[in-house]
């Protein structure tokens, strides 16, 4: 699949998705790639100047937490000696998210250039890109792109004829959602089980192999060359107030054309839905999870009034997350949807923290029994109480991620849970649910 639609794109501008060469070095160079890196390496002005452009651009991390990237880069002790690391997070395990895969597939050199610029500005000479275990073909392609950059003198010793030397390697995961959490990801690169570390210390002082390490998402690194090229103001102008730039939204679920769409922040949700071909079978939007399954669910009518940016989504009661927009129409049973989400967090909890390990287990068990007609009315309160006791009581945010959907599904679709418990069956008839998926085309 390709990027299926764009409005005024930045990351995907000028890319020919059908071409075999567009992603390669020659294609990236033809689009003006690596020019910013070369300029920075030659420039006499201080590194702070570039970091301040990133700060002014307002770029917020695209991995889920939305932390300001310029601020994060400023935390790295750039002038302290010793080894430092640049780590790119392409673990992309948040259900509903599949944008980093397409960035690596169609524009891998933008990620490499972003990591190199980061290395130079933060004083790091080694980088790793941690790539999601299931996308082996993309990992191979990224390795190929690294090889191209190396052969062209854009990676390794004396990059582009300067004194700057940096090596970047691809590291392949093997199936663990929690490894997307930055300290678990670092443990995984160290060859261990991916159990998140206590923070502080933060990775900027104590990261990979105990050295200062900057971790950013793929889309964040890939944005850097473009932002430095166009300048902070032009970048801000691409979006809306306080929410500059573009974002790749991964749209999945009940739409006619599920896929990735790069649009300016602030784009109204109905516009994005239209790009994605509208609702499958012309059905009604029942609910949307706008940022991946760890974000609160929003009822359809409210979602239709929302703009796709940090402020708009948070006003609607959810979070921006990773930009994974999961669309559910009226054929969806909300109890079943939540059951599957709860199973995921139960399965993926690393087990270090008791509230998360035990809580995700119990939440799944209880939702499972409601879905299977064995629920009791008090279960709804019990679920709420378990969720509230996990939130904020765990080493990493996986616990909060598990609690948020449970709390929001119950809040927004309480009637459906009550119906399930009273009638021991779904509000949405099974054949209707079955038709919704579009799998058995002939029977629809």
């Amino acid at each position: 699949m390709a990027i299926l639609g764009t409005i005024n794109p930045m990351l995907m501008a000028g890319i020919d998705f059908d071409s075999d060469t567009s992603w390669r070095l020659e294609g990236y160079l033809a689009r003006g790639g690596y020019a910013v890196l070369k300029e920075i390496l030659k420039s006499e002005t201080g590194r702070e100047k570039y970091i301040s452009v990133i700060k002014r651009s307002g770029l917020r991390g695209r991995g889920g937490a939305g932390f300001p990237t310029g601020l994060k880069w400023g935390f790295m002790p750039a002038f302290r000696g010793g080894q430092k690391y640049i780590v790119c997070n392409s673990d992309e395990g948040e259900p509903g998210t599949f944008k980093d895969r397409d960035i690596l597939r169609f524009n891998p050199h933008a990620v490499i250039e972003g990591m190199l610029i980061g290395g130079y500005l933060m004083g790091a000479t080694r980088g790793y890109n941690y790539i999601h275990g299931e996308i082996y073909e993309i990992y191979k392609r990224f390795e190929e792109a690294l090889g191209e950059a190396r052969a062209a003198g854009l990676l390794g010793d004396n990059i582009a004829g300067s004194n700057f030397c940096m090596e970047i390697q691809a590291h392949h995961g093997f199936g663990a959602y929690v490894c997307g959490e930055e300290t678990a990801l670092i443990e995984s690169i160290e060859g261990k089980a991916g159990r998140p570390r206590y923070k502080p210390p933060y990775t900027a002082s104590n990261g990979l192999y105990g050295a200062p390490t900057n971790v950013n998402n793929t889309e964040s690194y890939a944005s850097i060359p473009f932002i430095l090229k166009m300048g902070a103001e032009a970048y801000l102008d691409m979006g809306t107030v306080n929410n500059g730039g573009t974002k790749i939204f991964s749209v999945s679920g009940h739409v006619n054309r599920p896929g990735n769409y790069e649009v300016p922040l602030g784009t109204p949700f109905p516009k994005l839905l239209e790009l994605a071909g509208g609702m499958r079978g012309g059905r009604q939007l029942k609910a949307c999870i706008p940022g991946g399954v760890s974000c609160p669910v929003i009822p359809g009518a409210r979602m239709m009034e929302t703009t796709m940016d940090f402020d708009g989504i948070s006003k609607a009661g959810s979070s921006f997350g990773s930009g994974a927009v999961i669309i559910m129409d009226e054929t969806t049973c909300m109890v079943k949807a939540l059951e599957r989400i709860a199973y995921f967090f139960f399965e993926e909890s690393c087990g270090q923290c008791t509230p998360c390990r035990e809580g995700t287990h119990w939440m799944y068990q209880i939702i499972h029994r409601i879905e299977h007609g064995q629920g009791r009315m008090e279960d709804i309160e019990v679920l709420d109480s378990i969720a509230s006791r996990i939130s904020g009581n765990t080493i990493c945010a996986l616990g909060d991620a598990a609690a948020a959907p449970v709390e929001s599904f119950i809040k927004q679709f309480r009637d459906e849970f009550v119906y399930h418990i009273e009638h021991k069956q779904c509000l949405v008839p099974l054949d209707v649910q079955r038709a919704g998926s579009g799998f058995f085309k002939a029977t629809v």
Partner: protein
Amino acid sequence: MLTQESLQKIDREITKYPPERKQSAAVAALAIAQDEKGWLSNETIEFVANYLGMTPMAAYEVASFYNMYNLKPVGKYKLTVCTNLPCMLSGGVDAAEYLKQKLGIGFDETTPDGKFTLKQGECMGACGDAPVMLVNARRMCGSMLPEEIDKLLAELE
């Protein structure tokens, strides 16, 4: 214990990390060992551990933590079907049911002829291509509607 070819691949992984950090290649080395052997026995895990200079227990911990390792023998083809919510909305669960019926097995089971093992998977970062499945942890197949599944099974005969 492993072929020269696998060892070469592991050696290449080791070069990606600082010389005193060979253990960093553990996730990749175990995956390469699994590609060759089909699954990771205790002996294989121990061999990889010794090769990387880590304790067997540390390697076992890695092998048991990540979902894509097989700690038991599997069929010639391991099919992992994503049934997570975004895929479920576009037929992921139906695709799994379809496979169960066609193959006559449930999740975590292997067909009597030893050809197929069926697994339930979590999000593979490809939800736009739902239904999605993975063959032997390496090859991803998208848009797996009934006719595509039939085609894949025929091809894997």
